[in-house]
């Protein structure tokens, strides 16, 4: 898999993406110079706490930042070589849904309550494929079937309130797939669902990804999901990517204290029952008032003087394509949750 990955074309290249919100309370530094590439057919996990800029960075890619107060101050979002940030509204509309599609966190509110599920899927088909109602209805039924809704064709006329949470999320995925996107951005799609449904949705996306070959960006705060699904991981903190690498590198050769903390806070099957989970001390920083140096300093046990002075750049570590933004990464030793404790 990894080998075939190397030859794949770059689908999305983000350079120095900087998104800020100019509010009355001050400037919120939501995304601070994020750069990375995503290849065709790749599954990328984007991990971090609430408010670390994961969702804002995804919305920036789609051009969906509410403006005002939001503004993309800098950067490029090259999708298939074209900079989406230079697109006008109508060009963006053509891209949304047909090239990049998105699934949101809360399936309870992400479907329009006044229309049937079938109508909402056919709407996407008519926007992007110019299908007439009859054709679109057939395709919508197939899509619902593909995402595993039993009796799909009979449920097209159901309203969202007649679907359970898991079914609604499946319906949302069907809508997202209707335009055959090359990239599916899933913004915490399983957070609002219970664990069994969560596992089903993850399996579904995995299967769809294999069948359709699209790239998937899976945004989550759940490292467990990432380990199961993704090939590469971006760990985000306070609007920065602090560590990026393959799933293996992130879990087995962790080089950032924050990632280490995230892994340490996960329950493990192989530890003694009753062992307390380790929480990362402190709170994420206020994005209005970001410190000059590394934003993780107040919560970091490895911090030294230099960390207060200057934000470290993303540096290559000893692992291939494994980068980290930490002055002291060489001192951070991965896979050793015990040491941190």
């Amino acid at each position, binding site marked *: 898999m990894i080998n075939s990955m190397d030859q794949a074309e770059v689908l999305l290249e983000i350079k120095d993406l900087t998104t800020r919100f100019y509010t009355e309370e001050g400037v919120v530094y939501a995304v601070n110079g994020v750069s990375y590439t995503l290849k065709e057919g790749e599954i990328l996990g984007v991990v971090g706490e609430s408010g670390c800029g994961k969702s804002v960075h995804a919305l920036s890619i789609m051009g969906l930042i509410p403006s005002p107060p939001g503004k993309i101050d800098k950067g490029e979002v090259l999708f298939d070589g074209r900079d989406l940030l230079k697109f006008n*509204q*109508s060009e963006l509309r053509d891209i949304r849904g047909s090239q990049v599609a998105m699934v949101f966190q809360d399936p309870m509110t992400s*479907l329009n309550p006044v229309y049937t599920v079938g109508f909402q899927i056919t709407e996407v088909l008519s926007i992007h494929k110019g299908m007439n109602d009859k054709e679109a209805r057939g395709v919508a039924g197939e899509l619902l079937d593909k995402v595993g809704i039993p009796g799909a064709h009979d449920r097209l006329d*159901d309203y969202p309130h*007649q679907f359970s949470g898991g079914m609604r999320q499946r319906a949302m995925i069907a809508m997202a797939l209707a335009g055959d996107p090359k990239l599916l951005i899933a913004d915490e799609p399983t957070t609002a669902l219970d664990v069994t449904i969560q596992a089903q949705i993850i399996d579904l996306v995995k299967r769809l990804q294999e069948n359709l070959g699209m790239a998937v960006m899976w945004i989550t705060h759940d490292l467990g999901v990432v380990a199961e699904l993704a090939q590469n991981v971006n760990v985000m903190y306070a609007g920065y990517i602090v560590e990026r690498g393959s799933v293996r590198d992130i879990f087995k050769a962790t080089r950032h204290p924050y990632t280490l903390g995230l892994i340490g806070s996960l329950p493990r099957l192989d530890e003694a029952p009753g062992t307390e989970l380790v929480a990362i001390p402190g709170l994420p920083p206020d994005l209005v008032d970001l410190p000059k140096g590394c934003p993780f300093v107040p919560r970091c046990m490895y911090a030294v003087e230099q960390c207060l002075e200057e934000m470290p750049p993303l540096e290559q570590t000893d692992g291939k394509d494994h980068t980290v933004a930490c002055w002291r990464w060489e001192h951070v030793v991965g896979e050793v949750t015990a040491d941190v404790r």
Partner: protein
Amino acid sequence: MDEQKAGDQFSEASLPFSLGDEHSRKVEVRSPSRDILRRLVRNKLAVAGIAIIGIVILVAVFAPVLASQDPNENGVFKVFPRENKQAPSLDHPMGTDDLGRDMLSLIFYGARISVRVGVFAVGFAILFGATLGAIAGYAGGTVDNIIMRIMDIMLAFPSILLALVIVAAIGPGLFNAMLAVGIVSIPTFARITRSAVIKENENVYVMAARSLGAGSNRVLWKHIVPNSLSPLIVAASLGIATAILDAAGLGFLGLGAQPPTPEWGLMLSRNKHHIFTSPWMVIFPGVAIMFLVLGFNLLGDGLRDALDPWLK
């Protein structure tokens, strides 16, 4: 919704016995509007409101059949000098006015006017008010500011005063009165629609629609506005009541319908001198106005409860 959830959890296969055909049928498809209608019909006051409005509309439609005389046959208004100011009797259940016309017939024909006034004025107000409000709420910023400040200016006048000014400017008459009442109600509907649109715009489904390629027009008119209708429907029902009152008020002041139109407000005004000698000439038009306004108010309250069961 609860039935649906329960249905998900107990599939029949997991039960050790069969529930039979009765229970294995698919849960009946229920659209949200059906639910609302059901809640509305369960509310006795709302049903009373619907009944009142229904009666008045029937009377309005069948006025030529129900009334014993047409007050303005062939555009000439008839006078029956020998029958004037008769107290209610079997021949004239509501008595006759100073020109000898049958009050009941006048009121039947007046129903046509009042219903038309209410529906037209509110329809006009919604058409412009809701459009302006939706644009203001969706666009925000300067556009919002300009539209809503104009609305604020209109709201700063007492509604009847503003209606008077408008009628004075465009001339008295039934149609102009309807127009004036409609214009005066625009800001109310603009405000209601604006706040509903702002509230709906926060919802994830709006972002989801945008993320799938829907443009601003589609998002606003096809996704947000249909979801913002509930407060508008309630306001429309209550607004019709106000519009009827305002139009009657204009009629009373001589700026609305002109004689010989059998408009209820105008009847009150014309007959007010006879209130001590022939009270039926004033009481019945007044009761008719009250009756119809009450109907729309009851319906409006019922609709509010039905559309928003959590808010009482």
